């Protein structure tokens, strides 16, 4: 009886993916304990975030993909409306307008867009797949560039760029012609000098700092310099759990959130880093396998985009902490402290599991 109940409960979960995700989250809790200065409350609160996010994942996994895709247009319109509302009435915090107050709670509509954009584009290409022409790619690009513009204005450049990535992945998977991609790349490269001349001095300075952190060791560059020292001092096997010095000596701000990988790298070394990287790769591979076997165009595009986006997050975060990418506020998925990103990421995996586990039912 209990077995059957359990089986019913887990019928729409992908066991392999779930195991990998939970392993990653467990690693996250272990590092957080060290990064937060052995703060049990913080670890407990993060565990609670994880439980909530897993519940959301389970719920989404139980909804058949065709129902999820039917939600594409309403979700997109809702998200767009909320972004406009943020632009008009949003709450300003630390110089950026990202939050919207809704009486009891406040929400950050750009998070919703991270899911809504791939969903919307997948639905769009599915709908027009029989008559697909170049102009449809153009329209699809507009569909994600409008909200991206609103998000970039907040300003939240990091999120905007990642949403561009998630939208681009759908276009890419839907068969955006190579010549168009090459053309766009060439156009972008050619317009660089013009764009540069249009920027304000301080904006140029910012970009230069992003490219070369040592230009601004008091500001944005400080993080990168310190996190690179932390990772580098870890060596091959690391200093051991709880034995890192850099993070605990307040050299490294944000050590529990965006820069948590610096703590991991310092304490677990190259071996730990490569294992963690492999774990991300395994999850990505599983996601791509689900995409390859998905029955409809919409679900293929959706699964593919979600998976690539997930890896992009991980890459951008670790690249930034390891000092090869500019500092943008991107958390390490499922490892960094914070509830919102946890829910968004696992919601995405809920969709993947739904696509994977409803396949047989569709066929029969």
């Amino acid at each position, binding site marked *: 009886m209990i077995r059957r109940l359990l089986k019913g409960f887990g019928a729409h979960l992908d066991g392999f993916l779930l195991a990998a995700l939970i392993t990653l989250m467990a690693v996250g809790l272990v590092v957080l304990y060290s990064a937060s200065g052995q703060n049990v409350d913080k670890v407990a609160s993060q565990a609670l975030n994880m439980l909530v996010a897993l519940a959301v994942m389970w719920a989404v996994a139980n909804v058949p993909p065709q129902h999820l895709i039917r939600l594409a247009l309403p979700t997109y319109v809702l998200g767009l409306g909320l972004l406009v509302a943020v632009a008009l009435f949003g709450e300003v915090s630390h110089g950026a307008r990202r939050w919207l107050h809704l009486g009891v709670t406040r929400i950050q509509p750009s998070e919703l867009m991270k899911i809504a954009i791939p969903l919307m584009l997948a639905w769009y290409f599915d709908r027009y797949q029989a008559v697909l022409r170049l102009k449809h790619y153009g329209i699809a690009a507009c569909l994600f560039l409008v909200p991206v513009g609103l998000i970039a204005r907040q300003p939240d450049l990091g999120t905007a760029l990642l949403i561009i990535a998630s939208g681009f992945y759908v276009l890419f998977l839907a068969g955006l012609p190579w010549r168009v991609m090459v053309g766009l790349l060439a156009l972008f490269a050619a317009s660089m000098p013009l764009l540069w001349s249009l920027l304000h001095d*301080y904006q140029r300075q910012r970009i230069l700092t992003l490219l070369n952190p040592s230009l601004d*060791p008091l500001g944005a560059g400080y993080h990168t310099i310190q996190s690179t020292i932390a990772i*580098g*001092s870890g060596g091959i096997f690391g200093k051991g759990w709880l034995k890192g010095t850099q993070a605990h000596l307040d050299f490294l701000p944000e050590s529990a959130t965006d820069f948590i990988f610096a703590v991991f790298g310092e304490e677990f070394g190259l071996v730990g880093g490569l294992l963690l990287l492999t774990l991300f790769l395994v999850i990505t591979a599983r996601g791509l396998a689900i995409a390859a076997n998905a029955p409809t165009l919409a679900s293929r595009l959706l699964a593919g985009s979600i998976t690539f986006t997930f890896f992009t997050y991980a890459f951008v975060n670790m690249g930034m902490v390891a000092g090869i990418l500019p500092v943008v506020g991107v958390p390490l998925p499922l490892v960094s402290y914070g509830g919102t990103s946890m829910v968004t990421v696992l919601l995405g995996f809920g969709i993947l599991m739904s696509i994977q586990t409803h396949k047989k039912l569709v066929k029969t």
Partner: protein
Amino acid sequence: MTLPTELKDHQTELHRFKVRLVVGAVFVFLLFLILGGRFFYVQVMQHEHYRTLAENNRITIVPIVPNRGLILDRNGVVLARNYSAYTLEITPSKVPDLEATIDELSKLVEITPKDRKSFKKLLDESHTFESIPIRARLNEYEVARFAANHYRFPGVEIKARLFRQYPFGETASHAIGYIGRINDSDLGRLEESGEISNYRGGDHIGKTGVEQSYEKELHGVTGFEQVETDASGRAVRTLSRTPPISGSNLFLGLDIRLQEIAEKAFGDYHGALVAIDPRNGDVLAFVSEPAFDPNLFVDGIDSANWEALNDSPDHPLTDRALRGLYPPGSTFKPFMALAALALHKRTATSAIHDPGYYMLPGSSHRYRDWKPGGHGTVDLHKAIVVSCDTYFYGVANDLGIDNIHRFMSKFDFGRKTGIDIEGELAGLVPSQKWKWRRFKQRWYPGETVITGIGQGYTLTTPLQLAYATAILAGGGVTYTPHLVRAIQDSRTDLVHNVALHRSADLSLKPEDLALVKDAMIDVNRPGGTAVVAWAGVPYTVAGKTGTAQVFGIKQNEKYVASRVAERLRDHALYIAYAPAEDPKIAVAVVVEHGSHGGSTAAPIARKVMDYYLLGKLPQDKAVPATHEEGGPHD
């Protein structure tokens, strides 16, 4: 037939998707290798380097605050400077019992209740890990005494800091402005503009005046030292040093002697004066009386001083030159005359008979002239010289309000002049559209009539009046007024003048300008409204007096019984430029409750011009013109 194609389509589509997926996967793997490679490089190849950095030594980055640029007047007299002094500072997070520590400290170094209060205020505004000053400007004796007892006070330190000082105190305080401690809203702005890191280690920022609007130039670039510290955080050696770049020095157009003379000339009166060089837009004097001592704000103003300034019924913190809105009164008339000539509503010779009032056609309401019985036969010249109201009532009615609005906008009446400090108010010249938008009411002809003599809705700032006068003096050429005329780069010591913003010439006819100028010259001669102020003047002055019905600067002014009589008096206005044939200075003066432009405002303008043009100091010990009536009414 369709089915196989669709299937085939489906197959190619699926194939294409899988190809793309594989391409993506290859990319993912490449990125994986890049990251892995980076880890290998940092953690294996560079490991020794980073291990040394991380464990044996601790590198801290210490910001070095740049020297703030000086502010100097046009002759190089220093108006804002820096001096170094020792402060006693506490880092609250390192001190277990703040109260007890401060009590102990007060046995070594004098700490007044005022010091404690401002420390508390700063404590509330700052993070506990920041170093907060408890006493500024320690003398050498106090420094030595604390140093001997330093070991007893962990978390308390003596630091050498640069202080800002304004040697002239209240003089020109509204133009120069002041700096103060960085607060939350400053932080937000700095974060947004990406300049936050340039403020590490520093804690002051320009708050008003030139100190605020030229913050970027004055601040300079923060330098830093990479310092190696031992386990207890003490500096062992400096690894590298990037020196700070001092802020640029600013040269103002102000002549501080002229400014002092102008401020003194106001005596006990309140009001504003702006003097502009019509040849380039340099602001020569920028007076708002009463003023305040900017030195009070530098270390964080204490509450007693703040309340005294902020709650004073005299509003010393309000910049009247920039934000005081006054009806221009009769100083509007030269501009009305130009409008009438430019739009062909009057000629030089067309005259009217003034019975002492004006009536709109078909109405019996009398708009009175200030002179009962009227001025008799009045042409344009006489209308300006004797300040005839009846003449300009008619001019306004013939022009119509929208023409007046359009014409006056050319002189930036009702618009910001674009001066280089923040907070300027635009004033107002009404139009039909404006009234509809503002009150949802249509425009009445009577309102046009009183606009002709600068009353009604019309409001100007003293700055606008001075600017419009400068345009008049320059024959219709406009240079945006600016306080800062040159900037000196601290690295090269090169002084470069700020670019002059010359907007399009107003294309006023020279003969029209000459007509108005001649009349304005006669204003200051026998028979004119400002004759008493200009007896024996060796140069030619073109001017115009004005009187404005009282409007408080603010609605919530305190009621002070002893001042009511004075507070009900009209404001006195005066505009002038000289020498009339080759103008070098244009002035606008507003004396609050000064009654008559000719008797209170014009003498102030004379003192300013005498000094500027002749180098002559006022002789009458700077006593302002008498409060009694004097000279003809305007």
